[in-house]
């Protein structure tokens, strides 16, 4: 087992004993469940209305009526929930002085950062996998196109990973977990709003650049079933950039 794997294993073990993961997981799944329930009920009422107009059983599109709104609202939940998942990662190590153990062990800082990130990513993947119950149950009662569902999940995975990378970075900046959570929330919300600022500026080079930097536009395309290399590159670069910044911040603490 490499040192990075050891850190992942230790983080998962710690998470298993921490109440945070259960509370965060439960709240996330509860809200996801409620949101998809509301979407399904809305889809039902729309189907009845369509039937009254057309006088026949309409073919309702679950992709448009259920999955898309659910995926959009989930992005907002992630914005609130994922900073809580990442706030511990470096802040707690520094608070409890175990940071000294990591930093005086013969491993690179990149191993530490990678281990921390992969651990929260695995926890998030577990949470995401549990939401898979919703499409599986719906598939028993109706047929829908699986492709946009998978790309939507890919979007959730990539955007969530970016949120986690931002969260790990915020956690490395401070030794106070609340500050870490709030900082990552602030960064994410600001970047989110850049999309709105971009659209105000319209189709100008500056406006397009600002819109491109916001993660929501890229997520939108994935939810609609479009897999564009441009969006994948955006998320990959964003994640790597945040992890690189984390590396620099951790490294810089030695110089203070």
């Amino acid at each position, binding site marked *: 087992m490499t*040192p990075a794997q050891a850190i992942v294993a230790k983080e998962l*073990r*710690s998470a298993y004993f921490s109440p945070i993961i259960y509370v965060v997981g439960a709240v996330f799944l509860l809200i996801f469940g409620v949101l998809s329930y509301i979407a399904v009920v809305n889809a039902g009422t729309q189907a009845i209305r369509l039937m009254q107009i057309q006088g026949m059983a309409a073919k309702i599109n679950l992709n448009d009526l259920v999955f898309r709104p659910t995926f959009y609202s989930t992005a907002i939940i992630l914005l609130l929930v994922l900073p809580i998942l990442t706030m511990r990662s470096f802040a707690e190590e520094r608070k409890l*002085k175990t*940071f*000294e*153990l990591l*930093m005086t062990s013969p491993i690179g800082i990149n191993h530490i950062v990678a281990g921390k990130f992969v651990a929260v990513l695995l926890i998030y993947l577990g949470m995401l996998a549990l939401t898979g119950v919703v499409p599986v149950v719906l598939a028993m009662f109706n047929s829908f196109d699986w492709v946009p569902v998978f790309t939507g999940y890919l979007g959730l995975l990539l955007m969530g990973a970016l949120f986690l990378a931002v969260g790990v970075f915020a956690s490395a900046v401070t030794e106070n977990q609340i500050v870490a959570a709030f900082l990552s929330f602030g960064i994410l919300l600001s970047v989110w709003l850049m999309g709105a600022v971009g659209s105000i500026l319209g189709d100008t080079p500056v406006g397009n650049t600002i819109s491109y930097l916001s993660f929501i536009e890229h997520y939108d395309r994935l939810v609609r079933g479009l897999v564009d290399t441009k969006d994948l590159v955006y998320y990959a670069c964003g994640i790597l950039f945040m992890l690189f910044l984390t590396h620099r911040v951790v490294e810089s603490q030695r110089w203070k």
Partner: protein
Amino acid sequence: MIDVQHITKRYGDRTAIERVTFSVNKGEVLAFLGPNGAGKTTTMRILTCFMPATEGTATVDGFDCSEQSQEVKARIGYLPETPPVYQELTVLEYLTFVGRLKGMKAAALQQRMPQVIEQVSLGDVRHRLIANLSRGYRQRVGLAQALLHDPPVLILDEPTVGLDPKQIIEIRELIKSLAGSHTVILSTHILPEATAVCQRVVIINEGRIVAVDRPEHLSARLRRSEKISLTVKTPPHDFADRLRGIPGIVSVFAPADGGAYLVECALGRDLRDELARFVVTNDWGLLELKTISMTLEDVFLHLTQHEDGMDERSGGEAPHEARA
């Protein structure tokens, strides 16, 4: 094994340590002695590559602490001031994690763990969560962590803090048993500890080294005169004056309450013999006669509190010289 040359560490405007120079030979146990905030932890953090020095170089086993930090880290076992333990892990899980972090192979780790647990007597609590352990046990878990990968160099920041007297003796014995095969630097503010386990003592105050020497030499060198305590049953009223008449005696301190006279003799002269004969031939009743040597406590207080003491000695007190 460890060579520190003129290291200085500044935090903003504040200088934590200034031009600290010392070296430790292979197999030696060296104590870092100093009041709180003297710079002991800072020096240790530089040696363990936790942070780099502002100026100067430190090398461990020939590897530079700032440039070849991975090599240095692999050779050092470090117990920080606060034992770096994860509360939510059991002792065994924690040690397994540390072993993997230090890059130990699974087989080596399985073989080594029981030995270390035995060494620091953690056998009874190995399956318990660290969160439920007392301060002393956590300290020992921290010590086990430092010993785990059997590093040639051990850096222990106050290793016996929080332990009960029996455990303190056990840990001291453990450190003594490591001497020879391991190079150990430990910091402490408990002076008898330094005398008990260490071959050499570095006294550090306000970021500067004020003395480096063997514990017994330190007290001997600091004695600027020989002091003798003398108790006499029936001293004449002018006893102090008569004593001053003996050649070689610098001063006599007469007690007000009829206790022991404190006789100070010129350096290098042992006047016990003359004094005894002087009292006995006059039949005043010699009760007690002993030399007073400075304890390490006296030396420490002397070096760290009295400015005059430091200044007077700073000329011939270069650490290089003291290393011999």
